[in-house]
């Protein structure tokens, strides 16, 4: 245990010694504070701690819509875009050199000549590298948690699912970087390969998402699209799906199956956090009472879209990818002559 704690503590010191860590943390706190500056009044929304007011009849203090909007900004914008993309890229840039540096002659020798198994050393070092993201997201979530508590009197601990999910998402990309580092000992190469794999998986996930919307969501919402003109028609009732589209979607889904689901895993947060007992994928539950039939149809279709992949599928297939990649890296590390 002492050895494990030593490596984890060293990982923290390594991160703390990096300027980029503090820059990202500063930006994270800044964005979280801007989020926290949004509040709700009986007249509408207040921004920048009351400096500006946006009048609204629906989104007012104490309303479910205000709570929904506040949470949606967190789950649909801040988490996927700042924490799940920009901060993650910066984390990758910062963390990628950890393994190449560790594996350099003269550095690795001291660590592996100690009474600790190579397997433990490798895994703890790997987990320690994930601290970068875990700390950033934790700080962000603490501010968001306090903001929700103070603004809405909703002390929602489910917000902290973001720490687990985003660290998991980062680990899916970082494992590729580690494998490349074990093979090449090059920081630059390991960063580029990780970004490349991430880019490919994101493209496939986006394709799958678009294909699903075109194949299932649009017909379910009563929408049809003319592929030649791009013209959209609203039928007002559920339409049949095209078998050709279904076939094509099946192919795209199959291609993406063995790959890590970084995007989908990030959006799992929408299933994990709730507003008044309903999770963020239950679109129809957050509709106004006066919502039209087509709005209800569309909301139901979106619910179906948000829940098209089970948690087990997203986590399981991603975890299988990570275990496979990390297993190869670990096998090489354990057997390698340094």
């Amino acid at each position, binding site marked *: 245990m*002492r*050895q494990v*704690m*030593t*490596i984890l*503590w*060293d990982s923290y*010191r*390594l991160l*703390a*010694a990096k300027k980029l860590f503090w820059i990202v943390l500063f930006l994270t706190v800044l964005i979280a504070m801007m989020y926290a500056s949004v509040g709700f009044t009986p007249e509408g929304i207040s921004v920048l701690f009351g400096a500006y007011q946006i009048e609204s009849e629906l989104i007012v203090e104490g309303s479910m819509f205000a709570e929904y909007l506040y949470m949606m900004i967190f789950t649909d914008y801040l988490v996927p875009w700042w924490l799940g993309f920009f901060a993650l890229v910066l984390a990758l840039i910062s963390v990628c050199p950890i393994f190449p540096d560790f594996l*350099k*002659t*003269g*550095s*690795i*020798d*001291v*660590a*592996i*000549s*100690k*009474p*600790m*198994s190579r397997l433990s050393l490798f895994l703890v070092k790997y987990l320690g590298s994930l601290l970068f993201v875990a700390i950033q997201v934790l700080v962000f979530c603490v501010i968001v948690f306090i903001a929700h508590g103070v603004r809405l009197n909703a002390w929602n601990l489910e917000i902290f699912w973001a720490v687990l999910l985003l660290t998991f998402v980062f680990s899916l990309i970082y494992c590729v970087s580690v494998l490349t580092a074990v093979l090449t000992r090059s920081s630059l190469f390991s960063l580029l390969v990780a970004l490349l794999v991430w880019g490919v998986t994101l493209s496939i996930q986006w394709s799958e998402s678009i294909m699903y919307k075109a194949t299932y969501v649009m017909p379910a919402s009563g929408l049809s699209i003319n592929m030649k003109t791009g013209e959209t028609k609203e039928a007002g009732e559920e339409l049949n799906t095209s078998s050709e589209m279904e076939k094509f979607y099946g192919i795209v889904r199959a291609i993406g199956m063995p790959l890590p689901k970084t995007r989908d895993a990030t959006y799992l947060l929408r299933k994990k956090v709730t507003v008044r007992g309903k999770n963020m994928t239950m679109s129809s539950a957050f509709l106004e009472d006066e919502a039209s039939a087509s709005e209800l149809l569309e909301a139901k279709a979106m619910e179906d879209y948000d829940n098209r992949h089970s948690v087990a599928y997203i986590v399981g297939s991603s975890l299988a990818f990570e275990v496979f990649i990390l297993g190869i890296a670990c096998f090489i590390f354990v*057997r390698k*002559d*340094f």
Partner: protein
Amino acid sequence: MSDIVIDIADVRKKYRGGVEALRGVSLQVPRGGIFGLLGPNGAGKSTLVKILTSIVRPTRCAGIMLGAAIGDKATLARVGYLPEHARFPEYLKGGEVIRYVAGLTGISSADARQKAGQLLEMVGMQDWGNHKMGTYSKGMKQRIGLAQALVNDPEIVFLDEPTDGVDPKGRLEMRNLLQRMRDDGRTVFINSHLLGELEMICDSVAIMDKGEIVRQGTIAELTEKSRRYELKTRGTIPEELKHKLIAAGAEIGGEVISMVGSDPEPIQPMLDALRAEKVTIVELREIRQSLEELFMESVGAGGVGGTQKRSTPPQLPGKELVK
């Protein structure tokens, strides 16, 4: 407790690509002394140490270290190691490096803190323990390297080229530290190609070349055959006496008389005879082959166990008995 801390036989290492780094190395290292492993670059010295410290996996290895099989992880808790070109994290301070290595060895935080203070003092870095490694000179880094190698009170300390890149003053201090380690009862295993350094401190050595041990023993044992006494005279030695001296085994070249052997007894009657003939004795020296010469002889052009001999008698080092 055994007097032998490392006892290995037929250690082989063939790297992928076919490079045979070790070709059946057998070695015994006695407890509580300074053991030097010499060899030219690429001889396999570092590979051998890395096998002993489980950094490199041997192709074949039979033997024990500290009573356990080579590669036994638990045994490494009793071993210290300073690698060649050691790199410690630049973001850590000297004291933190020692505590970090202590943590990897499983030493408690409180003990590590106490030990780090003692070791910093021992290596003369007590005023620098709170400075980052990035601000250290090469010599200072080596001192920290030495301190971290001792943090677990090891029975064996492996030092791979410890004085490489260190200035003469630093080397002297390093030698003193090594002698102190020996005095503390530790076995110090040094890899080096700085023969002069090793000659001054090693109790026993092994010479390695092309993946094999070609000589092994104490320096005295290894240089035994080359030992002789050399007498420098002034004035003419009578012919009759010359014949007597040659008959007694001496070699005479001008004003220098040489007698092969490490025993000073045969020299005594020779001195008496020269005195009796009123020959002035300018100098009497005990001469033995230097480690460098022994090394060159072992790994010279003759290859493994090379037989290349010097045409003139070696002069270094000499020990003057009479002047």
